[in-house]
Protein backbone atom coordinates (compact mmCIF):
# COMPACT_ATOMS: atom_id res chain seq x y z
CA UNK A 1 0.00 0.00 0.00
CA UNK A 2 1.23 3.47 -0.85
CA UNK A 3 1.02 5.78 2.11
CA UNK A 4 1.80 9.50 2.26
CA UNK A 5 2.68 11.32 5.48
CA UNK A 6 2.66 15.12 5.57
CA UNK A 7 5.22 16.72 7.86
CA UNK A 8 5.92 20.24 8.97
CA UNK A 9 9.29 21.56 10.05
CA UNK A 10 8.92 23.76 13.13
CA UNK A 11 11.18 25.59 15.59
CA UNK A 12 12.67 22.99 17.94
CA UNK A 13 11.85 25.16 20.94
CA UNK A 14 8.46 26.74 21.37
CA UNK A 15 9.86 29.71 23.28
CA UNK A 16 9.92 32.39 20.61
CA UNK A 17 11.09 35.94 20.42
CA UNK A 18 9.95 38.98 18.54
CA UNK A 19 12.50 41.33 17.04
CA UNK A 20 11.86 44.49 19.08
CA UNK A 21 12.78 46.73 16.14
CA UNK A 22 10.71 45.19 13.38
CA UNK A 23 8.02 43.42 15.41
CA UNK A 24 8.64 40.35 13.25
CA UNK A 25 9.33 36.86 14.51
CA UNK A 26 13.01 36.36 15.20
CA UNK A 27 13.36 33.01 13.48
CA UNK A 28 16.96 33.31 12.35
CA UNK A 29 19.37 30.84 13.86
CA UNK A 30 16.61 28.81 15.50
CA UNK A 31 17.04 25.04 15.51
CA UNK A 32 14.34 23.32 13.55
CA UNK A 33 12.82 19.87 13.89
CA UNK A 34 9.97 17.69 12.71
CA UNK A 35 6.75 18.92 14.33
CA UNK A 36 6.47 16.52 17.33
CA UNK A 37 2.84 15.45 16.69
CA UNK A 38 3.86 14.50 13.14
CA UNK A 39 6.25 11.84 14.49
CA UNK A 40 3.22 9.69 15.38
CA UNK A 41 1.94 10.04 11.80
CA UNK A 42 5.38 9.09 10.50
CA UNK A 43 5.65 6.05 12.78
CA UNK A 44 2.19 4.85 11.75
CA UNK A 45 3.13 5.32 8.10
CA UNK A 46 6.32 3.28 8.57
CA UNK A 47 4.37 0.50 10.33
CA UNK A 48 1.82 0.28 7.49
CA UNK A 49 4.57 0.29 4.91
CA UNK A 50 6.38 -2.55 6.67
CA UNK A 51 3.20 -4.57 7.17
CA UNK A 52 1.93 -4.21 3.62
CA UNK A 53 5.36 -4.11 1.97
CA UNK A 54 4.24 -0.83 0.49
CA UNK A 55 5.85 2.52 -0.06
CA UNK A 56 5.96 5.52 2.24
CA UNK A 57 6.36 9.01 0.82
CA UNK A 58 6.77 12.05 3.06
CA UNK A 59 5.78 15.53 1.90
CA UNK A 60 6.50 18.91 3.37
CA UNK A 61 5.68 22.45 2.34
CA UNK A 62 8.47 24.67 3.58
CA UNK A 63 11.71 26.50 2.95
CA UNK A 64 14.74 24.87 1.32
CA UNK A 65 16.07 23.89 4.74
CA UNK A 66 13.03 21.74 5.42
CA UNK A 67 14.75 19.02 3.37
CA UNK A 68 16.61 18.19 6.59
CA UNK A 69 13.36 17.10 8.22
CA UNK A 70 12.47 14.98 5.19
CA UNK A 71 15.89 13.30 5.38
CA UNK A 72 15.28 12.69 9.04
CA UNK A 73 11.97 11.04 8.11
CA UNK A 74 13.85 8.72 5.77
CA UNK A 75 15.99 7.84 8.79
CA UNK A 76 12.83 6.71 10.54
CA UNK A 77 11.91 4.48 7.61
CA UNK A 78 10.25 6.54 4.89
CA UNK A 79 11.18 5.56 1.33
CA UNK A 80 11.24 8.99 -0.18
CA UNK A 81 10.76 12.62 0.73
CA UNK A 82 9.57 15.41 -1.52
CA UNK A 83 9.94 19.06 -0.62
CA UNK A 84 7.28 21.44 -1.91
CA UNK A 85 9.19 24.67 -2.06
CA UNK A 86 8.93 27.87 -4.04
CA UNK A 87 9.44 31.51 -3.10
CA UNK A 88 5.80 31.96 -4.14
CA UNK A 89 4.70 29.59 -1.33
CA UNK A 90 6.08 31.82 1.45
CA UNK A 91 3.39 33.13 3.77
CA UNK A 92 0.83 30.54 2.66
CA UNK A 93 -2.13 30.16 5.02
CA UNK A 94 -3.92 26.87 5.68
CA UNK A 95 -6.00 27.03 2.50
CA UNK A 96 -2.92 27.64 0.34
CA UNK A 97 -0.88 24.98 2.15
CA UNK A 98 -3.65 22.41 1.66
CA UNK A 99 -3.95 23.47 -1.97
CA UNK A 100 -0.21 22.91 -2.56
CA UNK A 101 -0.26 19.53 -0.78
CA UNK A 102 -3.32 18.53 -2.81
CA UNK A 103 -1.52 19.33 -6.06
CA UNK A 104 1.47 17.26 -4.91
CA UNK A 105 -0.74 14.28 -4.10
CA UNK A 106 -2.35 14.65 -7.50
CA UNK A 107 1.09 14.48 -9.05
CA UNK A 108 2.03 11.43 -6.97
CA UNK A 109 -1.22 9.86 -8.12
CA UNK A 110 -1.21 6.43 -6.55
CA UNK A 111 -1.81 6.49 -2.83
CA UNK A 112 -4.43 5.00 -0.57
CA UNK A 113 -3.90 6.72 2.75
CA UNK A 114 -2.65 10.15 3.82
CA UNK A 115 -1.64 10.50 7.48
CA UNK A 116 -1.04 13.82 9.25
CA UNK A 117 -0.27 14.84 12.80
CA UNK A 118 -2.99 16.42 14.96
CA UNK A 119 -1.65 19.95 14.54
CA UNK A 120 1.59 21.90 14.37
CA UNK A 121 3.11 23.29 17.54
CA UNK A 122 3.87 26.68 15.96
CA UNK A 123 0.77 27.67 13.97
CA UNK A 124 -1.52 25.37 15.97
CA UNK A 125 -4.39 25.59 13.52
CA UNK A 126 -5.10 21.87 13.11
CA UNK A 127 -6.88 22.71 9.85
CA UNK A 128 -4.64 21.60 7.00
CA UNK A 129 -5.37 17.85 7.05
CA UNK A 130 -9.15 18.41 6.84
CA UNK A 131 -8.67 20.99 4.09
CA UNK A 132 -6.37 18.62 2.22
CA UNK A 133 -9.04 15.90 2.35
CA UNK A 134 -11.54 18.33 0.85
CA UNK A 135 -9.04 19.39 -1.83
CA UNK A 136 -8.63 15.73 -2.76
CA UNK A 137 -12.35 15.04 -2.56
CA UNK A 138 -11.42 12.30 -0.09
CA UNK A 139 -13.06 11.28 3.20
CA UNK A 140 -11.50 12.41 6.47
CA UNK A 141 -11.32 11.12 10.03
CA UNK A 142 -9.47 13.22 12.62
CA UNK A 143 -7.89 12.20 15.95
CA UNK A 144 -7.37 8.50 15.26
CA UNK A 145 -5.86 6.58 18.17
CA UNK A 146 -5.91 3.11 16.66
CA UNK A 147 -6.05 1.56 13.22
CA UNK A 148 -8.07 -1.61 13.76
CA UNK A 149 -8.02 -2.97 10.26
CA UNK A 150 -6.51 -1.87 7.01
CA UNK A 151 -7.93 -3.23 3.78
CA UNK A 152 -7.40 -2.47 0.13
CA UNK A 153 -10.55 -0.40 -0.21
CA UNK A 154 -11.35 0.69 3.33
CA UNK A 155 -9.85 1.27 6.75
CA UNK A 156 -11.39 0.73 10.19
CA UNK A 157 -10.17 3.21 12.80
CA UNK A 158 -10.87 4.18 16.38
CA UNK A 159 -10.96 7.87 16.96
CA UNK A 160 -11.29 10.11 20.00
CA UNK A 161 -14.71 11.72 20.31
CA UNK A 162 -16.42 14.03 22.77
CA UNK A 163 -17.88 11.16 24.76
CA UNK A 164 -15.12 8.60 24.36
CA UNK A 165 -14.30 6.76 21.17
CA UNK A 166 -15.92 5.96 17.87
CA UNK A 167 -15.09 3.12 15.52
CA UNK A 168 -15.37 4.28 11.93
CA UNK A 169 -15.01 2.56 8.62
CA UNK A 170 -13.68 4.93 5.98
CA UNK A 171 -13.36 4.35 2.24
CA UNK A 172 -9.92 4.65 0.69
CA UNK A 173 -8.23 6.72 -0.49
CA UNK A 174 -8.73 8.88 2.55
CA UNK A 175 -7.06 11.21 5.02
CA UNK A 176 -6.63 10.75 8.77
CA UNK A 177 -4.94 12.62 11.57
CA UNK A 178 -3.46 10.63 14.44
CA UNK A 179 -2.82 11.36 18.11
CA UNK A 180 0.01 10.37 20.42
CA UNK A 181 -1.92 7.40 21.83
CA UNK A 182 -1.66 5.53 18.53
CA UNK A 183 1.97 4.40 18.88
CA UNK A 184 5.40 4.98 20.35
CA UNK A 185 7.71 6.32 17.67
CA UNK A 186 10.87 4.28 17.14
CA UNK A 187 14.42 5.51 17.27
CA UNK A 188 16.01 5.56 13.80
CA UNK A 189 18.18 2.52 13.08
CA UNK A 190 21.78 2.81 11.98
CA UNK A 191 20.70 1.66 8.52
CA UNK A 192 18.04 4.36 8.51
CA UNK A 193 20.54 7.00 9.46
CA UNK A 194 22.81 5.91 6.61
CA UNK A 195 19.89 6.07 4.17
CA UNK A 196 19.01 9.53 5.47
CA UNK A 197 22.55 10.72 4.95
CA UNK A 198 22.59 9.55 1.35
CA UNK A 199 19.05 10.64 0.52
CA UNK A 200 18.45 13.20 -2.19
CA UNK A 201 15.26 15.19 -1.69
CA UNK A 202 13.58 16.30 -4.90
CA UNK A 203 12.06 19.77 -4.82
CA UNK A 204 8.75 20.42 -6.54
CA UNK A 205 8.10 24.10 -7.18
CA UNK A 206 4.97 25.91 -8.29
CA UNK A 207 5.61 25.13 -11.92
CA UNK A 208 6.26 21.45 -11.33
CA UNK A 209 3.05 21.22 -9.30
CA UNK A 210 0.91 23.29 -11.64
CA UNK A 211 0.19 25.73 -8.80
CA UNK A 212 -0.68 29.29 -9.80
CA UNK A 213 1.92 31.34 -7.86
CA UNK A 214 -0.58 34.20 -7.53
CA UNK A 215 -3.08 31.93 -5.74
CA UNK A 216 -0.80 30.98 -2.85
CA UNK A 217 1.76 32.58 -0.53
CA UNK A 218 1.23 35.90 1.24
CA UNK A 219 -0.29 37.46 -1.85
CA UNK A 220 -2.77 34.75 -2.78
CA UNK A 221 -3.84 33.31 0.59
CA UNK A 222 -7.42 34.08 1.62
CA UNK A 223 -6.28 35.08 5.12
CA UNK A 224 -3.22 36.82 6.44
CA UNK A 225 -1.62 37.66 9.75
CA UNK A 226 -1.97 41.40 10.17
CA UNK A 227 -0.05 41.63 13.44
CA UNK A 228 1.63 39.47 16.06
CA UNK A 229 2.05 40.41 19.71
CA UNK A 230 2.75 38.93 23.11
CA UNK A 231 -0.35 38.20 25.16
CA UNK A 232 -0.90 40.44 28.16
CA UNK A 233 -0.34 38.63 31.39
CA UNK A 234 -2.64 39.67 34.21
CA UNK A 235 0.37 40.69 36.29
CA UNK A 236 2.79 38.89 38.53
CA UNK A 237 2.02 35.73 40.40
CA UNK A 238 0.95 36.20 43.98
CA UNK A 239 2.58 33.65 46.25
CA UNK A 240 0.27 32.82 49.12
CA UNK A 241 2.23 32.60 52.38
CA UNK A 242 1.67 30.84 55.67
CA UNK A 243 0.83 27.31 56.75
CA UNK A 244 -1.40 25.15 54.48
CA UNK A 245 -4.48 26.27 56.41
CA UNK A 246 -3.62 29.95 55.88
CA UNK A 247 -2.70 29.46 52.22
CA UNK A 248 -5.98 27.68 51.47
CA UNK A 249 -7.95 30.39 53.30
CA UNK A 250 -6.35 33.14 51.24
CA UNK A 251 -6.85 31.18 48.03
CA UNK A 252 -10.56 30.62 48.64
CA UNK A 253 -11.02 34.34 49.46
CA UNK A 254 -9.33 35.40 46.26
CA UNK A 255 -11.19 32.91 44.08
CA UNK A 256 -14.48 34.07 45.60
CA UNK A 257 -13.59 37.70 44.95
CA UNK A 258 -12.82 36.83 41.35
CA UNK A 259 -16.14 34.90 41.19
CA UNK A 260 -14.17 31.93 39.94
CA UNK A 261 -15.86 29.54 42.39
Amino acid at each position, binding site marked *: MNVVVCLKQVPAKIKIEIDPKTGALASGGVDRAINPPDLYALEEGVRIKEKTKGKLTVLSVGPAKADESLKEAIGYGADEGILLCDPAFEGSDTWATAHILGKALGKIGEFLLVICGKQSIDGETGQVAAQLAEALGAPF*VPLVNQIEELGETSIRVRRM*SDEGHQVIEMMLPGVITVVKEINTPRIPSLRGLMAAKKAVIPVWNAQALGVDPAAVGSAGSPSRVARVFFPQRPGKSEMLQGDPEGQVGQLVDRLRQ*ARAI
Partner: protein
Amino acid sequence: MSAESGATGDIWVVTQQRDGQTRAASYALIGQARKLADACQARVAAVCLHDGVKDADQLAAFGADRVYMVGGPVPDGWNDDAYVKELSDLARRDRPGAILATSGALGSSVIPRVAMALGTSVAANCVSVDLDPQSQTLVHTRPAFGGSLMANVVFAGRRPQMATVRPHAYRKGQPDAARQAEMVRVDFDKAAVTSRSQLLSVVQDLAGRVRLDEAEVIVCGGRGLGKAENFQIVAELAEVLGAALGTSRPPVDDGWVPYSQQVGQTGKTVSPRLYIACGVAGAPQHLAGMQTSEIIVAINEDPKAPIFEVATYGLVGDLFKIVPLLTSKLREARG
Protein backbone atom coordinates in the same frame (compact mmCIF):
# COMPACT_ATOMS: atom_id res chain seq x y z
CA MET B 1 -20.52 37.99 -2.75
CA SER B 2 -19.44 41.13 -1.00
CA ALA B 3 -15.78 40.76 -1.89
CA GLU B 4 -15.38 44.26 -3.30
CA SER B 5 -17.58 46.26 -0.97
CA GLY B 6 -15.76 45.32 2.21
CA ALA B 7 -19.14 45.11 3.90
CA THR B 8 -19.31 42.40 6.52
CA GLY B 9 -22.49 40.79 5.21
CA ASP B 10 -24.53 38.39 7.32
CA ILE B 11 -22.71 36.79 10.20
CA TRP B 12 -23.52 33.11 10.58
CA VAL B 13 -23.01 31.11 13.74
CA VAL B 14 -22.99 27.34 13.25
CA THR B 15 -24.61 26.01 16.40
CA GLN B 16 -23.97 22.76 18.21
CA GLN B 17 -26.48 20.81 20.24
CA ARG B 18 -26.39 17.99 22.72
CA ASP B 19 -29.61 16.05 23.23
CA GLY B 20 -31.38 18.73 21.21
CA GLN B 21 -30.24 21.59 23.47
CA THR B 22 -27.95 24.22 22.05
CA ARG B 23 -24.66 24.41 23.90
CA ALA B 24 -23.81 27.43 26.02
CA ALA B 25 -20.77 28.17 23.85
CA SER B 26 -23.00 28.50 20.77
CA TYR B 27 -25.27 30.95 22.61
CA ALA B 28 -22.26 32.93 23.74
CA LEU B 29 -21.00 33.12 20.18
CA ILE B 30 -24.41 34.27 18.90
CA GLY B 31 -24.21 37.05 21.49
CA GLN B 32 -20.83 38.18 20.20
CA ALA B 33 -22.02 37.93 16.58
CA ARG B 34 -24.94 40.20 17.59
CA LYS B 35 -22.51 42.85 18.86
CA LEU B 36 -20.43 42.65 15.68
CA ALA B 37 -23.53 42.81 13.49
CA ASP B 38 -24.90 45.83 15.35
CA ALA B 39 -21.64 47.65 14.75
CA CYS B 40 -21.81 47.15 10.99
CA GLN B 41 -25.55 46.96 10.30
CA ALA B 42 -25.40 43.27 9.47
CA ARG B 43 -27.72 40.43 10.37
CA VAL B 44 -26.98 37.38 12.51
CA ALA B 45 -28.07 33.94 11.39
CA ALA B 46 -27.94 30.84 13.58
CA VAL B 47 -27.38 27.72 11.52
CA CYS B 48 -28.70 24.38 12.79
CA LEU B 49 -27.29 21.53 10.75
CA HIS B 50 -30.10 19.14 11.70
CA ASP B 51 -33.73 19.57 12.69
CA GLY B 52 -33.52 17.94 16.10
CA VAL B 53 -33.07 21.32 17.80
CA LYS B 54 -35.52 21.78 20.67
CA ASP B 55 -34.65 25.34 21.67
CA ALA B 56 -34.73 27.10 18.29
CA ASP B 57 -36.84 29.99 19.69
CA GLN B 58 -34.05 30.71 22.15
CA LEU B 59 -31.60 31.31 19.31
CA ALA B 60 -33.59 34.45 18.48
CA ALA B 61 -33.71 35.54 22.12
CA PHE B 62 -29.91 35.44 22.28
CA GLY B 63 -29.45 37.52 19.14
CA ALA B 64 -30.20 35.68 15.88
CA ASP B 65 -32.22 37.52 13.21
CA ARG B 66 -32.58 34.38 11.19
CA VAL B 67 -32.48 30.70 12.08
CA TYR B 68 -31.63 28.16 9.42
CA MET B 69 -33.03 24.73 10.10
CA VAL B 70 -31.58 22.23 7.73
CA GLY B 71 -33.98 19.32 7.29
CA GLY B 72 -33.29 15.74 8.11
CA PRO B 73 -32.92 13.75 11.28
CA VAL B 74 -30.08 14.03 13.75
CA PRO B 75 -27.34 11.82 12.47
CA ASP B 76 -25.81 9.22 14.72
CA GLY B 77 -22.86 11.40 15.62
CA TRP B 78 -21.00 10.80 12.41
CA ASN B 79 -22.18 12.57 9.34
CA ASP B 80 -19.43 14.99 8.46
CA ASP B 81 -19.84 14.40 4.72
CA ALA B 82 -23.47 15.52 4.95
CA TYR B 83 -22.72 18.49 7.21
CA VAL B 84 -19.96 19.71 4.88
CA LYS B 85 -22.28 19.53 1.88
CA GLU B 86 -25.18 21.19 3.73
CA LEU B 87 -23.18 24.10 5.01
CA SER B 88 -21.23 24.75 1.83
CA ASP B 89 -24.37 24.53 -0.35
CA LEU B 90 -26.18 26.93 1.96
CA ALA B 91 -23.25 29.36 2.03
CA ARG B 92 -23.03 29.31 -1.77
CA ARG B 93 -26.72 30.11 -1.98
CA ASP B 94 -27.00 32.86 0.65
CA ARG B 95 -23.43 34.17 0.67
CA PRO B 96 -22.68 35.16 4.26
CA GLY B 97 -19.91 37.62 5.05
CA ALA B 98 -18.66 35.49 7.93
CA ILE B 99 -19.15 32.03 9.40
CA LEU B 100 -18.29 31.45 13.06
CA ALA B 101 -18.32 28.19 15.00
CA THR B 102 -16.96 26.94 18.27
CA SER B 103 -13.71 25.04 18.07
CA GLY B 104 -13.81 21.36 18.96
CA ALA B 105 -15.32 18.49 16.99
CA LEU B 106 -17.06 20.77 14.47
CA GLY B 107 -14.08 23.09 14.19
CA SER B 108 -11.57 20.34 13.56
CA SER B 109 -13.39 18.69 10.69
CA VAL B 110 -16.53 20.23 9.21
CA ILE B 111 -15.47 23.89 9.32
CA PRO B 112 -12.06 23.51 7.61
CA ARG B 113 -13.61 21.28 4.95
CA VAL B 114 -16.35 23.82 4.25
CA ALA B 115 -13.72 26.56 4.03
CA MET B 116 -11.78 24.56 1.45
CA ALA B 117 -14.97 23.90 -0.51
CA LEU B 118 -15.72 27.64 -0.51
CA GLY B 119 -12.16 28.64 -1.39
CA THR B 120 -11.50 30.42 1.88
CA SER B 121 -9.50 29.89 5.07
CA VAL B 122 -10.26 29.54 8.77
CA ALA B 123 -8.87 31.59 11.63
CA ALA B 124 -8.73 28.65 14.06
CA ASN B 125 -9.19 28.56 17.85
CA CYS B 126 -9.71 32.30 18.23
CA VAL B 127 -9.89 33.95 21.63
CA SER B 128 -11.75 36.95 20.21
CA VAL B 129 -13.41 38.20 17.05
CA ASP B 130 -13.74 41.96 16.67
CA LEU B 131 -14.73 44.43 14.00
CA ASP B 132 -12.29 46.85 12.42
CA PRO B 133 -14.55 49.89 12.13
CA GLN B 134 -12.65 51.33 9.19
CA SER B 135 -12.61 48.36 6.87
CA GLN B 136 -15.80 46.85 8.35
CA THR B 137 -14.02 43.50 8.31
CA LEU B 138 -13.43 41.07 11.14
CA VAL B 139 -10.21 40.91 13.14
CA HIS B 140 -9.61 37.44 14.56
CA THR B 141 -7.23 37.07 17.49
CA ARG B 142 -5.73 33.63 17.93
CA PRO B 143 -2.90 32.19 19.99
CA ALA B 144 0.04 30.40 18.42
CA PHE B 145 3.28 28.88 19.71
CA GLY B 146 1.57 27.36 22.71
CA GLY B 147 -0.15 30.58 23.72
CA SER B 148 3.12 32.49 23.96
CA LEU B 149 2.22 34.60 20.94
CA MET B 150 -1.00 36.13 19.65
CA ALA B 151 -1.83 36.86 16.02
CA ASN B 152 -4.48 39.04 14.38
CA VAL B 153 -5.81 37.25 11.34
CA VAL B 154 -7.76 39.14 8.68
CA PHE B 155 -9.34 38.23 5.36
CA ALA B 156 -8.51 40.79 2.71
CA GLY B 157 -11.16 40.28 0.05
CA ARG B 158 -12.18 36.65 0.33
CA ARG B 159 -15.62 35.80 1.72
CA PRO B 160 -16.86 34.29 3.82
CA GLN B 161 -14.47 35.12 6.61
CA MET B 162 -14.39 31.92 8.67
CA ALA B 163 -13.33 31.35 12.24
CA THR B 164 -13.56 28.85 15.05
CA VAL B 165 -13.73 30.34 18.52
CA ARG B 166 -12.68 28.75 21.80
CA PRO B 167 -15.57 27.71 24.07
CA HIS B 168 -14.82 30.19 26.89
CA ALA B 169 -13.96 33.17 24.71
CA TYR B 170 -17.37 34.71 25.41
CA ARG B 171 -19.92 34.35 28.18
CA LYS B 172 -23.51 33.44 27.45
CA GLY B 173 -25.50 36.68 27.61
CA GLN B 174 -29.04 37.46 28.75
CA PRO B 175 -31.92 36.40 26.49
CA ASP B 176 -34.40 38.97 25.22
CA ALA B 177 -37.71 37.14 24.85
CA ALA B 178 -39.10 39.97 22.69
CA ARG B 179 -36.61 39.27 19.91
CA GLN B 180 -37.97 37.45 16.90
CA ALA B 181 -36.17 35.60 14.17
CA GLU B 182 -37.11 34.56 10.69
CA MET B 183 -37.21 30.76 10.47
CA VAL B 184 -35.74 29.45 7.26
CA ARG B 185 -36.24 25.77 6.63
CA VAL B 186 -33.80 24.26 4.20
CA ASP B 187 -34.58 20.97 2.54
CA PHE B 188 -31.63 18.72 2.42
CA ASP B 189 -31.64 15.13 1.39
CA LYS B 190 -28.99 13.52 3.53
CA ALA B 191 -29.57 10.22 1.78
CA ALA B 192 -28.30 11.82 -1.42
CA VAL B 193 -24.88 12.39 0.12
CA THR B 194 -22.50 9.58 -0.53
CA SER B 195 -21.13 9.16 2.94
CA ARG B 196 -17.73 7.63 2.58
CA SER B 197 -17.34 6.92 6.24
CA GLN B 198 -19.62 4.90 8.42
CA LEU B 199 -19.93 4.85 12.18
CA LEU B 200 -19.68 1.26 13.35
CA SER B 201 -19.73 1.62 17.11
CA VAL B 202 -19.46 4.11 19.93
CA VAL B 203 -17.57 3.66 23.19
CA GLN B 204 -18.91 6.23 25.64
CA ASP B 205 -16.33 5.75 28.34
CA LEU B 206 -16.21 9.49 28.97
CA ALA B 207 -19.98 10.03 29.01
CA GLY B 208 -21.17 11.88 32.09
CA ARG B 209 -17.72 13.27 32.82
CA VAL B 210 -17.07 16.98 32.65
CA ARG B 211 -15.29 17.53 29.35
CA LEU B 212 -11.89 19.15 29.40
CA ASP B 213 -12.51 21.44 26.44
CA GLU B 214 -15.84 22.68 27.80
CA ALA B 215 -15.07 22.87 31.51
CA GLU B 216 -15.18 26.22 33.32
CA VAL B 217 -12.86 24.76 35.93
CA ILE B 218 -10.11 22.18 35.48
CA VAL B 219 -8.23 20.44 38.26
CA CYS B 220 -4.99 19.01 36.95
CA GLY B 221 -2.88 16.37 38.71
CA GLY B 222 0.75 15.93 37.76
CA ARG B 223 3.72 13.73 38.50
CA GLY B 224 3.87 15.16 42.03
CA LEU B 225 0.95 12.89 42.96
CA GLY B 226 3.43 10.01 42.91
CA LYS B 227 1.12 7.18 41.92
CA ALA B 228 -2.18 6.40 40.23
CA GLU B 229 -4.13 5.86 43.49
CA ASN B 230 -3.27 9.36 44.68
CA PHE B 231 -5.31 10.88 41.86
CA GLN B 232 -8.25 10.29 44.16
CA ILE B 233 -7.42 13.48 46.06
CA VAL B 234 -7.51 15.65 42.93
CA ALA B 235 -10.61 13.81 41.69
CA GLU B 236 -12.36 14.77 44.93
CA LEU B 237 -11.42 18.41 44.50
CA ALA B 238 -12.68 18.27 40.90
CA GLU B 239 -15.95 16.77 42.05
CA VAL B 240 -16.59 19.52 44.63
CA LEU B 241 -15.90 22.16 41.99
CA GLY B 242 -17.83 20.43 39.22
CA ALA B 243 -14.53 20.54 37.38
CA ALA B 244 -12.97 18.40 34.69
CA LEU B 245 -9.96 16.33 35.70
CA GLY B 246 -6.82 16.88 33.66
CA THR B 247 -3.27 15.67 33.81
CA SER B 248 0.16 16.36 32.39
CA ARG B 249 2.26 14.07 30.27
CA PRO B 250 4.16 11.93 32.84
CA PRO B 251 1.06 10.37 34.47
CA VAL B 252 -0.22 9.41 31.00
CA ASP B 253 3.10 7.91 29.98
CA ASP B 254 3.16 5.94 33.23
CA GLY B 255 -0.34 4.66 32.57
CA TRP B 256 -1.94 6.29 35.65
CA VAL B 257 -4.43 8.36 33.66
CA PRO B 258 -5.86 7.89 30.14
CA TYR B 259 -4.50 10.01 27.30
CA SER B 260 -7.90 11.65 26.78
CA GLN B 261 -7.21 13.64 29.99
CA GLN B 262 -3.81 14.98 28.93
CA VAL B 263 -3.42 18.73 28.70
CA GLY B 264 -0.52 20.11 26.69
CA GLN B 265 1.21 20.15 23.36
CA THR B 266 0.55 16.49 22.51
CA GLY B 267 -2.75 16.44 24.39
CA LYS B 268 -5.56 18.95 24.61
CA THR B 269 -5.36 22.73 24.59
CA VAL B 270 -7.66 24.19 27.22
CA SER B 271 -8.57 27.66 28.36
CA PRO B 272 -10.92 27.46 31.36
CA ARG B 273 -11.79 30.27 33.76
CA LEU B 274 -9.96 28.48 36.56
CA TYR B 275 -7.10 25.98 36.26
CA ILE B 276 -5.76 24.36 39.42
CA ALA B 277 -2.44 22.58 38.85
CA CYS B 278 -1.54 20.14 41.63
CA GLY B 279 1.96 18.69 41.57
CA VAL B 280 2.51 19.84 38.00
CA ALA B 281 6.05 21.08 37.32
CA GLY B 282 5.06 23.11 34.26
CA ALA B 283 7.16 21.87 31.34
CA PRO B 284 6.90 24.18 28.29
CA GLN B 285 4.83 21.48 26.55
CA HIS B 286 2.30 21.56 29.40
CA LEU B 287 2.21 25.35 29.62
CA ALA B 288 1.52 25.42 25.87
CA GLY B 289 -1.78 23.68 26.50
CA MET B 290 -3.11 25.77 29.39
CA GLN B 291 -1.39 29.11 29.81
CA THR B 292 -4.27 31.07 28.28
CA SER B 293 -6.50 30.01 31.21
CA GLU B 294 -8.01 32.99 33.02
CA ILE B 295 -6.93 32.19 36.59
CA ILE B 296 -4.17 29.67 37.24
CA VAL B 297 -3.55 28.23 40.70
CA ALA B 298 -0.33 26.28 41.19
CA ILE B 299 0.27 23.97 44.13
CA ASN B 300 3.77 22.51 44.21
CA GLU B 301 6.43 21.82 46.80
CA ASP B 302 9.22 23.15 44.57
CA PRO B 303 9.23 26.96 44.66
CA LYS B 304 11.34 26.96 41.48
CA ALA B 305 8.81 24.94 39.44
CA PRO B 306 8.12 26.76 36.14
CA ILE B 307 4.36 26.45 36.70
CA PHE B 308 4.67 29.35 39.17
CA GLU B 309 5.78 31.62 36.31
CA VAL B 310 2.32 31.45 34.76
CA ALA B 311 0.36 31.10 38.01
CA THR B 312 -2.03 33.79 39.22
CA TYR B 313 -1.81 32.33 42.73
CA GLY B 314 1.04 30.13 43.88
CA LEU B 315 0.98 27.84 46.91
CA VAL B 316 4.35 26.37 47.76
CA GLY B 317 3.85 23.36 49.98
CA ASP B 318 2.76 19.77 50.36
CA LEU B 319 -0.09 19.09 47.96
CA PHE B 320 -1.16 16.11 50.08
CA LYS B 321 -1.99 18.59 52.85
CA ILE B 322 -3.16 21.56 50.74
CA VAL B 323 -5.47 19.82 48.27
CA PRO B 324 -7.58 17.91 50.85
CA LEU B 325 -7.83 21.10 52.93
CA LEU B 326 -9.07 23.01 49.89
CA THR B 327 -11.57 20.26 49.10
CA SER B 328 -13.01 20.19 52.59
CA LYS B 329 -13.16 23.99 52.85
CA LEU B 330 -15.09 24.18 49.56
CA ARG B 331 -17.32 21.28 50.61
CA GLU B 332 -18.17 23.04 53.88
CA ALA B 333 -18.99 26.21 51.99
CA ARG B 334 -21.39 24.31 49.76
CA GLY B 335 -23.01 22.82 52.84
